[in-house]
């Protein structure tokens, strides 16, 4: 995931990865033959998240995006229910 060097804080990177996997990983539909492996890259998921929250869509981690990810929220995914 492209990040700003100073942003390369281990904890933040882990938080971001978890967040995107939890809320922006399109859960494959078990009924579909030959499941489409969830090939979306981190950057694409990040763009989706930034778009959902009305943030600047860059696909790169910035302060505002990180702050939004730290806010308490519902555990239901934002996409791909």
């Amino acid at each position, binding site marked *: 995931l492209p990040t700003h060097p100073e942003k390369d804080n281990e904890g933040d990177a882990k938080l971001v990865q978890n967040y995107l996997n*939890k*809320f922006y990983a399109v859960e494959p539909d078990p009924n579909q033959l030959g499941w489409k492996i969830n090939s979306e890259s981190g950057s694409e998921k990040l763009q989706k998240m930034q778009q*959902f*929250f*009305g943030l600047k869509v860059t696909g790169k981690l910035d302060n505002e995006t990180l702050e*939004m990810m730290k*806010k*308490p*929220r*519902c*555990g*239901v995914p*934002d996409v791909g*229910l």
Partner: protein
Amino acid sequence: YGFTLPGWKKNKLTYRIVNYTPDMSKEDVDKAIEEAFKVWSVVTPLIFTRIHKGIADIMIAFGTRVHGHCPRYFDGPLGVLAHAFPPGNGLGGDVHFDEDEDWTTGSSGFNLFLVAAHEFGHALGLSHSKDQRALMFPNYAYISPSEFPLSPDDISGIQSIYGSPPNAPDERPTTPTSPKICGSQMSFDAITTLRREVIFLKGRHLWRVYPDNPEAERELISVFWPNVTPGIEAAYENTKDQILLFKGNKFWIVSGYQVLLGYPKSINTLGFPKGVKKVDAAVCNKNTGKTDFFIGDKYWRFDENSQSMEKGYPRPTVNEFPGISQRVDAVFQQKGLFYFFHGSKQWEFDPLAKKVIREMKSNSWFNC
């Protein structure tokens, strides 16, 4: 809004509270859950009935980390607060709350009523909304209990699955309640003039009072200024026919109905130091071109001409405004006089004589 069809194929649904959180009394949990279902039943034909044993459509439980057979895990304090499953058998419709959170009936911790109302939206088939004013927005946001928590977006979403209540007069999304303006305890979050009007703001709503028209007009803030989040805390009209709206450490400038581009901005850009997190109230004295910002028991003075904060502030409010000793909820200027609001009272203040002229009820401007 978003939804997952087909939703429940019946209007009568059962729910069961399987266990309780130690953070709240059982009565408070029961009430919060009942009220949270009521939020959805008032805008749809749905009817919710509680059962105490067996399998209900909507099973409600508190758990931590890996809980029961649930495929989703909780993460300890903060982070994920709760989750729910869309309508269906088994896990379908079930709602789980993370017991590692602090569940409350108020504004501290996480308000169980609000989170439950959100999760029940999922249990009925709604997914998350991108509208920051919607209850179905993913992030937690506290809303005063006097406010009906559903936004027009939420109501449109749920009514697209189940339709409106059988006795609704028309199909438009209805927000059944808004604060009772003539209630004896009525208070306001912010008040501003706009040319000859006075605009009173509270939660999601605003009331427009015209000098010669006894009937105030009530609107949803989101209808008036779509990009502005509800719960505005301070507002004032500057010397350029614009309104500034404040919430937390952000502010918007509105010209007419248009929010200027590039807003919200941080209040630090006005000259407040980093430590200032919010503004309680604000008023621009049209006679001097100076704006007073009230924060706690102090005020700051801003020069609208030079667009800069004046030196030597903050100062105790009571020094400049003798008799205004309480925190200021809202303030505006009308015909040269200031009107300070705190709770259900207001004080008419003469800035030249520097004295309170009279005390009135906050809603004295409405034809109560």
